[in-house]
């Protein structure tokens, strides 16, 4: 009896273990329920867990799924595949490498469309899109300046291999240069009259109510030139001394001294430290140009003067918009690249005594007027990464062959209508919330919907979302879908100061930086790979050796040291990349 019992117990245990192992196999069918058609869709980033745990619970998506689509008026469901946070690239590689991919792929992280088409991973939509996506086609017709971005040239034939998200306008960016405006007002003096400045918050509860009479040496109320920055650094030094800050500094920079997309490098005559297209349409490599040398000379001087963070080269794991975040948020840094959530008085949250009364303002990348030769001076920065007029590409893969693509494409086409674009960009209206009684909206104070319609027909973001730092807005709208992203027709309720700071971050348009644009998106797999290998080697050399220039281990003013640097870069073969990219730069425009 005892033996039998043991056997039975063992069998039950074994079965349970086997079942638990098998439970992980196979995919869930998500919201398929009673839908006529179910599709799978990979998105690189999903929901904010603070609001819901499954992207299928997205309120705007659920509203859209109530409708029927396609010529046969079918209902549909989507099963989202969302990678764990931070592992999207790995997840994409594994998925595509294994051949087990879904019907729709978010192209935020993907191979070039030409390569995916060539290898049979994605479908040719040239005939299907005009048939099932009239609103998308209408948008392209009405915007001839971006129409070409919906097509790919395959052996001289125009093909539609993807659906593109369209941006109504260029949107503000989320981060940029910020500086302690309150320090300038408190410790600075008018460069012309020598009189002390004054500045204060007019409403202590409003972080954007700062007013002052600050004037910079260049004559305006915003820092425009490198000389304005150096003037500020002298004031920051005074401020830190007066406030007893011993472990602060005037400015932080990204750990190698540059970001490869340009930004500060382009302040010294334009272009980026790696590859860019100059204003004459020629592909250039920036790190051996006088512009980059001027940047190194500038940072070397600032480092020697103690203005630059003396440990900048050690902050290798910090994001470019959150360098030495702790010290910055403690109010011990004068100028940094920060987030929109740090603008105005938003950092005055009692983190330290030095943030009491803090006011940070946004600034554009400066124009060099001090360092290098004349080619490096008085040129507006022109290599910056902003939102363009087109967004993510979306692919229908060969996994969807045999499925009803008319229904799927009609569903996507809905987001190119005004109603759909609102769901994608903002979320539900008041009427839609009343109709659906969506719990996420009701629980988070969005009873009146995500927006209201103003008299002029534009949309005003709900006050709850105006104060939101981003999580709720993303949870309320169905952003992860092709469609039109509304920009200019939305009033986000920004205060004047706040909007001015954000506008300064996008003061100079990008004219030369092409990474991620059509110029690099249509290269062949072989070209992309070879460029990537050279890129990796060059960047590796630069991240080790640029800090040496800045910290004075090598001298950027010395021709010998500079020539050694240039020779090494040449040896890594940057010219080969120039030659590969040039035909694409000739063919495609930088958006």
């Amino acid at each position, binding site marked *: 009896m005892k033996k039998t019992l043991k056997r039975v117990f063992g069998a039950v245990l074994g079965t349970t273990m086997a079942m638990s192992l098998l439970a992980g196999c196979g995919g869930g069918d998500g919201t398929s329920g009673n839908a006529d058609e179910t599709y799978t869709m990979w998105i690189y980033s999903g929901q904010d867990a603070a609001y819901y745990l499954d992207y299928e619970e997205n309120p705007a998506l659920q509203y859209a799924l109530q409708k029927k689509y396609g010529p046969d008026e079918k209902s549909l469901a989507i099963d989202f595949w969302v990678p764990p946070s931070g592992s999207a690239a790995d997840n994409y590689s594994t998925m595509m490498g294994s051949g087990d991919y879904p019907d729709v792929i978010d192209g935020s992280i993907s191979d070039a469309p030409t390569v995916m088409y060539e290898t049979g991973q994605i479908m040719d939509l040239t005939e299907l899109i005009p048939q099932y996506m009239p609103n998308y086609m209408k948008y392209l017709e009405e915007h001839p300046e971006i129409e070409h971005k919906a097509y790919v040239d395959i052996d001289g034939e125009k093909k539609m291999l993807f659906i593109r998200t369209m941006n109504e306008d260029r949107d503000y960016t989320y981060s940029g240069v910020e500086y302690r405006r309150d320090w300038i007002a408190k410790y600075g003096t008018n460069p012309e009259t020598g009189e002390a400045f004054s500045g204060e918050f007019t409403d202590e509860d409003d972080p954007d109510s700062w007013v002052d009479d600050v004037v910079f040496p260049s004559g305006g109320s915003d820092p425009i030139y490198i000389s304005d920055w150096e003037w500020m650094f002298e004031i920051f030094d005074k401020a830190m001394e007066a406030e007893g800050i011993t472990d602060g500094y005037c400015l932080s920079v990204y750990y190698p001294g540059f970001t490869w997309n340009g930004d500060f490098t382009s302040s010294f005559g334009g272009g980026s430290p790696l590859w860019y297209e100059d204003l004459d349409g020629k592909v250039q490599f920036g790190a051996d140009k006088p512009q980059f040398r001027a940047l190194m000379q500038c940072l070397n001087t600032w480092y020697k003067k103690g203005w630059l963070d003396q440990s900048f080269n*050690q902050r290798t794991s910090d994001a470019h918009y959150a360098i030495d975040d702790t010290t910055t948020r403690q109010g011990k840094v004068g100028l940094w690249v920060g987030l929109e959530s740090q603008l105005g008085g938003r950092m005055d949250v009692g983190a330290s005594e030095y943030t009491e009364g803090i006011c940070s303002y946004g600034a554009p990348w400066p124009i060099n007027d001090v360092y290098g030769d004349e080619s490096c001076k008085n040129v507006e920065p022109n290599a910056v990464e902003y939102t363009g007029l087109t967004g993510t590409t979306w692919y229908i893969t060969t996994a969807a062959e045999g499925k009803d693509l008319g229904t799927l494409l009609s569903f996507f086409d809905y987001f190119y209508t005004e109603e759909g674009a609102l769901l994608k960009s903002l979320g539900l209206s008041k009427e839609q919330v009343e109709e659906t009684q969506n719990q996420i909206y009701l629980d988070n104070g969005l009873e009146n919907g995500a927006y209201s319609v103003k008299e002029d027909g534009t949309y005003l973001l709900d006050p709850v979302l105006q104060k939101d730092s981003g999580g709720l807005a993303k949870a309320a709208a169905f952003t992860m879908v092709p469609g039109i992203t509304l920009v200019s027709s939305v009033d986000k309720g920004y205060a004047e100061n706040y909007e001015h700071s954000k506008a300064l971050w996008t003061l100079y348009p990008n004219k030369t930086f092409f990474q991620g644009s059509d110029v690099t998106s249509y290269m062949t797999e072989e070209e992309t790979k070879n460029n990537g290998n050279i890129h990796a080697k060059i*960047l590796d050399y630069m991240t080790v050796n640029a800090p040496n220039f800045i910290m004075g281990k090598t001298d950027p003013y010395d021709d010998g040291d500079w020539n050694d640097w240039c020779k090494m870069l040449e040896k890594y073969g940057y010219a080969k990349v120039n030659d590969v990219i040039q035909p694409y730069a000739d063919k495609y425009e930088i958006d």
Partner: protein
Amino acid sequence: MAAKAKAVKVAAPKLSWKRDFQRNWPVYVLFLPAFLYTLVLNYTPLVGLLMAFENYSQARGLFGSQWVGFQNFIDLFTGEEFFRALKNTVIISTLKCTIGFIMPIGFALVLSLVRNKKFKRITQTFSYMPNFIAAVVVVALVQNFLSDHGAITMLLAKFGLPVQNWLANPDVPVFWVIYLVMGIWQGLGWGSIMYVSAIATVSGDLHEAAAIDGATRMQRLFKITLPCIRPMIVMMFVIGVGINFIAGFDTILLMYMPSTYEVADTLYTYTYRMAFAAGASNYGLSTASGLFQSIVATTLLVGSNAISRKMGESSLF
């Protein structure tokens, strides 16, 4: 009499596989998961070594990618920083195989001398604990302790050493010492388990007889305990020689920075940067590097095993 003394070896009757399975099927069933695990997770992925000889493309797959022969190996060996990475790998592996290897043995021997059983158990338990802390957490602790405001930095400053972020110091042998000490701290207790077990099997009679003959505890330690566990030490060393060349470098990836590449960049980290950083996705180079490291490690393993056997010590195979 002599013939009687000879042990008579009785061979077990040979059973057919079918018969053996019928009689011992529960054993086979128990073995099956381990067999499948090894087959699926250890042997099937070996097919991926083909990538080392291909211009591998995810889109084209393993059997559709372009065959490039030894080009990936040429790229690897002719890389500007390859020899720096190889040098650091050899140095760090050697440190792990020497100082890092001796420490757990010493710890096990010291433990064997402790008479208070409760104290011994508590010490052992505490020494195992760091092994269960994730590498990321250990590195975060090290970064905190050794930063320019860190506790250890402050302590060292009391002895006249400069206040600095020690992990950013490129001078020899700062990084190597930090990495070695971190490894010893994390692996000391866990690494000593085998030796503690081996020491426990040493006959108490030997110690008793030696004690009666007047041997001191230290003499017994060196004349009885150490010789008795020598086969275990040799076996662990042979295994360690191979493993130390290919394992444990992931923590370096978390700890190093461009200013310390000169002393901290290893084959593992160098390959990672060349293959996956800055938009590159060079699986071929990565696999070539992995294969190279495995071949070197296997050669070291076989070589040290052969030397051990030649010197009359025990060997793995």
